[in-house]
C-alpha cells in the first residue's frame, strides 16, 4: 500500500475512533470537553486555511470573515426554526457562494495586496452585520434558540460535531493535495507564470481552492454559534479567527496534511497555559509565541521533526 493510502486510512481510523470514543471518555469532564471542542474548531479553520495559505501560497486573512458569516447564517436560520443540520449545510453553502465571486476578484491580486483585500472582507462583513440589525440583532448580538437544554448533552454534541468536521476537513486537505487540483496549486505556489505556461488555469484553480477552504470555515462558525449559544459581530468577525489558524499551521508545518493537526494541538495547549497563568497579558503572550516561533522554528514542528530525523 502506498504511504498516501496508509495516511488516509490512519486519519479515517484515528479520527473515527476520536469521534466515537472521546465524547464517552470525556463525559463528566466539561473542561476537557470544551478544550477538545476548541481544538477541533481551530483545526477546522487551520486545515481549511492551509488549502489557500499552504497549498496555494496565498496569504489569506479571510478565514474570520467566513467563520463569522457561517455563524450568523446558522444562528439566523435556527432562530427562524430551521433544523440545525440544515443550518450547518446552509452556512457552508453561504460560505462557498460568497467565496466564489470574492475569490475570483481578490485572487487576481498577489502578496500584500491580496492579504489586505482578504482582510477587508471581514471588516466589511462585520460592519454590514452590525448595521443590518433587523436581521442580525446588530450590536446586541443573537442568542441561538437551540442552545438551551442540558449542558452536558450540548457539550457532548458540540464535541462530536466539531470533531467530525475536523476529521472531514483534514481529509479534504489530503484529497486536494493528492489530486490534480493539488498538483496545480503546488505549481501556482511555486511559480504562477510557469504554471500558466504549462497550461494550469491558475485563476480557476485558485478560486476552487478558495471556495473549498471557505466552506469548512463557515460550517465551523455555525458549529461555534450553536455551541456557545450567543454570538455578536465583534466576536465572530474578530481578526483573531483569521490569525490563530495561520499561527497554528505555521506551528505545525505549512502546506502539510498533518501540520494543522499538530499545530492546532500545540496552539490550544499553549493558549490554555497562557490564558490561565497570565490573565492580563494573554494577547501579548500570543504575540511572544508568534515572534519566537517565526525566529526559532520558521518551518514549523512537523517539517523540523522530519528533517531532524533524516539528518541523524
Amino acid at each position, binding site marked *: 500500500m502506498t504511504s498516501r493510502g496508509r495516511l488516509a486510512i490512519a486519519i479515517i481510523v484515528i479520527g473515527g475512533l476520536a469521534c466515537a470514543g472521546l465524547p464517552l471518555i470525556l463525559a463528566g469532564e466539561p*473542561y476537557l470537553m470544551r478544550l477538545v471542542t476548541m481544538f477541533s474548531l481551530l483545526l477546522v479553520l487551520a486545515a481549511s486555511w492551509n488549502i489557500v495559505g499552504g497549498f496555494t501560497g496565498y496569504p489569506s486573512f479571510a478565514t474570520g470573515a467566513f467563520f463569522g458569516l457561517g455563524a450568523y447564517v446558522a444562528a439566523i436560520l435556527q432562530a427562524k426554526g430551521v433544523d440545525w443540520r440544515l443550518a450547518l449545510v446552509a452556512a457552508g453553502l453561504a460560505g462557498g457562494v460568497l467565496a466564489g465571486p470574492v475569490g475570483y476578484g481578490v485572487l487576481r491580486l498577489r502578496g500584500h495586496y491580496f492579504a489586505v483585500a482578504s482582510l477587508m472582507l471581514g471588516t466589511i462583513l462585520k460592519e454590514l452585520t452590525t448595521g443590518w440589525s433587523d436581521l442580525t440583532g446588530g450590536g446586541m448580538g443573537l442568542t441561538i434558540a437551540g442552545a438551551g437544554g442540558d449542558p452536558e448533552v450540548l457539550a457532548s454534541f458540540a464535541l462530536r460535531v466539531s470533531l467530525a468536521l475536523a476529521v472531514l476537513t483534514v481529509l479534504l486537505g489530503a484529497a486536494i493535495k493528492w489530486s490534480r487540483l493539488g498538483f496545480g496549486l503546488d505549481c501556482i505556489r511555486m511559480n504562477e507564470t510557469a504554471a500558466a505556461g504549462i497550461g494550469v488555469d491558475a485563476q480557476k484553480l485558485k478560486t476552487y481552492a478558495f471556495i473549498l477552504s471557505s466552506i469548512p470555515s463557515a460550517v465551523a462558525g455555525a458549529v461555534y454559534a450553536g455551541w456557545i*449559544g450567543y454570538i*455578536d459581530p465583534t466576536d465572530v468577525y474578530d481578526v483573531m479567527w483569521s490569525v490563530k489558524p495561520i499561527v497554528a499551521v505555521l506551528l505545525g508545518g505549512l502546506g502539510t496534511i498533518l501540520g494543522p493537526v499538530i499545530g492546532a494541538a500545540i496552539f490550544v495547549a499553549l493558549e490554555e497555559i497562557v490564558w490561565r497563568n497570565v490573565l492580563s497579558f494573554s494577547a501579548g503572550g500570543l504575540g511572544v509565541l508568534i515572534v519566537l516561533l517565526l525566529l526559532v522554528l520558521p518551518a514549523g514542528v512537523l517539517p523540523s521533526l522530519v528533517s531532524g530525523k533524516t539528518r541523524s
Partner: protein
Amino acid sequence: MQRRTVLMGMAAAVVAPAIVRAQGSDELRIGAPLPLTGPLAPEGQKQKRGYDLWVKEVEGAGGFEIGGHRVPVRIIYSDYQSATPRAVQACDQLVTQQRVHALFSPFGSGAAKASSSIAERYRVPMIAPTASSREVYDQGFKYLFGTFTPNETLTEPLGNMVMAAAPAIRRVAIFSRNDLLPLALSAEMKKSAVKRGLEIVFDEKFAIGSLDFASALTQMRSADPEWVFVGGYVNDLVQVRTQMRDLGLKPQVLTMIAGPAYEEFTQALHRAAENISSAAWWHPAVRYEGADIFGKTENFVQKFLATYSALPDYIEASAAAAGAILQLAARKSGSLEGPALRDALASLDAMTFYGPISFGPTGQIEKLVPPVFQIQGGRPIVLAPTSIAQGDFRLGIT
C-alpha cells in the same frame, strides 16, 4: 452496630470532600467574569473596584456570615477580553471547575443575557449589576437578578423635566452608539419623545470605536434640533460634546447617557460639560439608610473615596451592591445552596446604601427610582426625584 458505625464513618470520609466542595461552607466563592482587557476594559475595571471594596468590607467585618458562623469570601475573576462568548465560557468554567456558589454577571445587557443561561443550567444564582434591558430578564429564568431598572425609567423622568422647563421644545435629535445599551436607551428616548408630541428631526447611529463625528454633527446642525440626545459611553460622549462645540452646535437641551455620571466626564470637558443633563441608576448624592454592610449611602461614598480617591459612579455602586445583596440573602437563607440562595434573593425586600432592593417576577429590580441630574458648576446636581433634589433644571449649553 459498631461495625456499622465504622462503615458509615468510612463512607462519610469518602463522600465528605464532595459534600464540602458542593456546599463549600469553608469559604464563599463567587465567580466574576470581567472584561479586564479589550474595549470594555474601563467598565470592567469599574465593576471590579465595586466588588473589591465590598470584599474588603466583608473581611474587615471578620467574614461572611452564614448559618451562624463567618466564612472568608473569595471572588474568582476571569478576564473574558470583552468577547461575550468568552464570558459565557468563563461562567461555565467558574461553575464547573471552581464550583462557585454564585455568579456576578459580566458587563452589560448582552453578556448578561448570554451568560444567564449558564446560571440557569447549573442552578447558581447570578446577580447582574450592569444589565438594564428588559430582554435580559424576559427569558423566564429563575436564577437571574438585576440591579438596574428598565431603560425607560431613565428617559421618562427626563422627558417630564425637559417639557416642564421648556414646553416650546419641538425638535429632537437622537444620536447613538451602535451598541446594546445606547441603542436601547435611544429607542426608549424616541418613545418618550413621540409620546410627548415631539418631532424626531435627526436619528443616526455611529460605529463602535468611532473618533470623528464631525460629518454626522454637521448634518445634525442642519436639522436644527432644540433637544439633542446622545447615547454612548463616556469616551464617545466626550468626543461628541467636544466636536459639537467645535461646530458651534448649541441646542437648548443636551442630554447624554451614560457618561456624565462618571467623574472623568466632567474632568475631560470642564466648562463644556455645563448643563448637560443625564440620568443614571444611582448617584453619590442619593441618601439611603441601608440595612446592608455599608449602611448609609454617605458611608459607602466615604469608604470608596478613601480607597480609590475618587467618587463612585453607578457601575461601581451597583457592583458593590451586588455583594451587599448577596450577603443579605445568604443571611436570610442560612445556606449557600443554589436553590435556597435563589429563593432568598427572590423574596428579598430590604433597604441598602444603593436603594430599596426587591426583585420583580422577572428578577429585575423594582422600586428603585433612578435619579435625574445635570452638570452644574462642574459637578452633577440631582434634580429628581424631588425628595433628594439639589437644584433646578437649567436650559442652554455653552
